């Protein structure tokens, strides 16, 4: 598992989300929501689809090649309310993506935020509460 060589920081806020099973298309048991990972890479694909959007990110592997990471996002409806658009990410852009990694160490994760080439940050959190927009503050 190569996550260790990247920034891998437990975040207290993420720990509060353990009981939140996610966006309910499917189980979120596979993501470790107590961990966050940030990877810088090139956008291979950004798909604006229901019920989930996703990012395919090519991350340099340190050997002259790259690894493909699959990052799962919220629904486009929720993302739109957080400032996202279909054109927010374009193939070829170099971005930093922060996500909750898979527990099994495979190259995938649950999206938290992205820093675009111009420094703009797009998240999966509501600006007001700092929590995911479709997870109630009661949790």
């Amino acid at each position, binding site marked *: 598992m190569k996550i260790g060589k990247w920034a891998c920081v437990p975040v207290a806020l993420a720990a509060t989300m353990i*009981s939140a099973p996610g966006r*309910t298309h*499917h189980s979120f048991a596979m993501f470790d929501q107590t961990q966050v990972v940030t990877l810088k890479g090139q956008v291979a694909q950004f*798909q604006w689809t229901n019920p989930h959007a996703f990012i395919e990110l090519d991350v340099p592997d340190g050997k002259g090649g790259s690894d493909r990471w699959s990052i*799962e996002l919220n629904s486009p409806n929720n993302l739109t309310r957080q400032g996202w658009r279909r054109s927010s990410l374009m193939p070829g852009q170099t971005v930093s993506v922060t996500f909750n990694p*898979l527990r099994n160490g495979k190259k995938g994760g649950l999206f938290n935020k992205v820093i675009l080439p111009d420094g703009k940050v797009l998240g999966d959190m509501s600006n007001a509460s700092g929590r995911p927009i479709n997870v*109630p503050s009661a949790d």
Partner: protein
Amino acid sequence: MTARNAHQPRRAERLPRLGLTIAALLLTIPAEAQTDRNRRLTPEQLDTMQQRHPGLAGALDPANLAKPRPTPPFNMTGTWFVDLSEGFNKFRFGPPYPEFLEAGQKALAEGEATRARGENYRDSIGQCYPAGMPMIMTRVWPIMFIQMPTAIYMVAGFTNSFRTIYLDGRAHTDPDIYVPTYNGESIGHWEGDTLVVDTQGFETDHHWIDTGLPISDQFHMIERIRMINGGNTLEIEYIMTDPQNWKGAWRNTKRWDRVTEADIGEVECTEARNANLPGTDRGQQTLDEREEKK
């Protein structure tokens, strides 16, 4: 050629047969009808082609809609969102759970152990199986109802799951005819200020409640639906029985709030899209395939 294909004609052989079939069908239609666009098929010809239930008026049959009926105590027409103010886990139907029999006990234990390992357990919804009733009600996507005098139509925002609650006084379809469905066959009637809905006829294949709890073909559901909060909140009490899987009645009450700046859009689950979602089993397969290629 596989064994299955061995009995099937090649495509080139099938095409002439298809042409003959179409020609045979056309011969059964009067020649005038083939040339006169104002002509219609005879009732007998239509009867062989369309899906209908002879002797039972459809819920949208104008004559059925026009029948005199008492004014219902409330109208559910609107868009609704499950109330999660008591916690996100309120989208589940337990705990508390009833006393499960063997299959349910096994599912509870296996589910807990599997999730503890960070793996999915019976995540059939993630493989595009319908959530089915009752889980489709709490997918954290809005749900719409359109209430007519004869039926209430539901479309869930998540994968556009469709459900009809008949109000026109019909009885349940003969189980020997009814094709089981994930949302079942729902018949409603009014009791004072409450709509009581009786649902049966469930498809059981990969149809779970909460995290992998199984149902059998004896699964039966009563919903007691009330409109509260000045018409802005629906409260539904679920009373679910399945003598093959648990003892007594499994009860749970949930609420949905009216949402006004929302619509139900088209949402599909497809295997191709799941291939890019690492939280699904298909997405995991993609990650494994990539590693094998490296």
